[in-house]
């Protein structure tokens, strides 16, 4: 995939030039920063909303997002078992700012998780969803910048995560009653 390699070179070519940019990208690319920040966003969303109806809508978004994450991760594992793509640093000289991951490059785990979360929120809450999509885009771009994914991996991850989130959102007729039960339990504990 020439376009993939060409785009990778364009983005990864910026790595190693400015220590400040490299440092910022290292903070974004690691497994802890953005994933934790996005999860904290879900905690905030759970409590967001003046009035019961608004809050309940946001809480349904959070439950749907958790479900999307679980489903996207399952599909990701399935993809990894049937297809293996080597990382860019295995086949080419790259500016690597991260450790050497050993799992398949395609689809990108980070993009799958990030976009499953972001699209799930965006479909029901555009305002909050925009922030999550921005975070997912940053997460995916940082993976390319630091040399651990091809752009195609990130695109595939985004399609997988976003697709799962979209497909599940179309099943709200079946899922909403389940969410209502979960919310009722939480409400009894004064937590919803």
């Amino acid at each position, binding site marked *: 995939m020439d376009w993939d390699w060409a785009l990778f070179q364009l983005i990864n070519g910026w790595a190693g030039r400015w220590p400040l940019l490299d440092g910022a990208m290292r903070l974004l690319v690691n*497994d802890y920063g953005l994933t934790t920040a996005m999860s904290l966003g879900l905690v905030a969303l759970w409590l967001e909303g003046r009035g019961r109806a608004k809050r309940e809508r946001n809480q349904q978004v959070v439950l749907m997002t958790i479900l999307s994450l679980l489903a996207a991760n399952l599909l990701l594992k399935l993809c990894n078992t049937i297809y293996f793509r080597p990382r860019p640093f295995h086949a080419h000289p790259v500016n690597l700012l991260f450790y050497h991951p050993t799992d398949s490059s395609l689809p990108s785990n980070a993009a799958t998780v990030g976009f499953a979360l972001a699209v799930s929120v965006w479909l029901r809450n555009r305002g909050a969803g925009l922030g999550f999509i921005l975070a997912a885009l940053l997460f995916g771009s940082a993976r390319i910048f630091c040399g651990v994914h091809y752009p195609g991996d990130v695109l595939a991850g985004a399609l997988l995560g976003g697709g799962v989130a979209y497909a599940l959102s179309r099943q709200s007729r079946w899922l909403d009653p389940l969410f209502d039960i979960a919310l009722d339990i*939480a*409400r009894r504990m*004064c937590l919803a």
Partner: protein
Amino acid sequence: MLNFVSARLALSYLLLCALSCIGVLQIQAARQRLVGLSLWGGRGARWWGYAAGLLFIIGSFAGFYAFTPGIFVPGLAGSELAVLFAAGSILALVVTLTGASLAAPRPDRAAMEADEGEVVATPQLRGWIHIPQGSGPLPALCLVPEMGSSAGDLGMVGARLRTLGFVALSIDWMKAGDPWAQAQGTLPRYPDALALVPAGVNYLLHLPEVDEGRIGVIGFGLGGDLVLRAAAADEQIAAALAVSPCLTPEPCDPGLDLLRNRSFWQAVRWRRRRKAQSALVEQLNGLAFLPRIPPRPLLMLHPPGSPLPVPLTGVEIRPLPDPQMGLPRDQEVAQVIGCWCEENL
């Protein structure tokens, strides 16, 4: 199977999740005005909550990146991160709810005692009365608190009504001369509970300061159901006001809204009491007695978040001034009560 790589890394990440989650809870406690989640009891300006929350979040991330080795080498995988984040969130919730319970503002006992007025204790009722200075005849009100609350909790409303020129009698749910209730430490059951408001009205009627034609009743929570029943049966009641009456045995569960003005443990107790009183709510059936109330000023203050079980006619319905429960210590609720009584009695 989960592989946490190193105990230090896992513990550091757990700490990051817990502390940053406490930060998020503090920001949302300030933003949504949730006293039950606020580590400083919701006192002071909201920006304190935002500042403290940001400090928790930034501090926890800075500490994690500064003092945790192995962040940029292969470490925790997605499932481990998810488990640790869930554990950290639960830890943060427990710490926040416990801390907020300790920090929750306590009722100002001294102020309440100053507001309590004079004690009334007869074989039929027990409570407090506020009588204004000056000569009568004066309009009078009989106040019934929420089930399980004491008449002393209505001190602020009573004192306010006194300043407006009303005689205000706040009655306790537990009767002074009721050996069964005193022995059990419990509250009157149906139909004994129906005697509470008539006893209060009767007491007021025998006071020389009171104008017999201007007696009103005010009830909070289940006390509201009691005054609706009393207003349907007693022609001498000139006006009735029910603040957040129960009306149906299974009222809308306020859930998180309970934490707006009480700590988590107070909310748990409130729920338990609400459950216990549901049998009495069903027996009182205030909703069925509403149409039987003769034409007279009738107001219901209802929490805006919870819909009424049926459309009601012949009763003025206003939202509670603040989307909190109709606590009699709420200044805005007391103000609405005062204004309405001045207009209608």
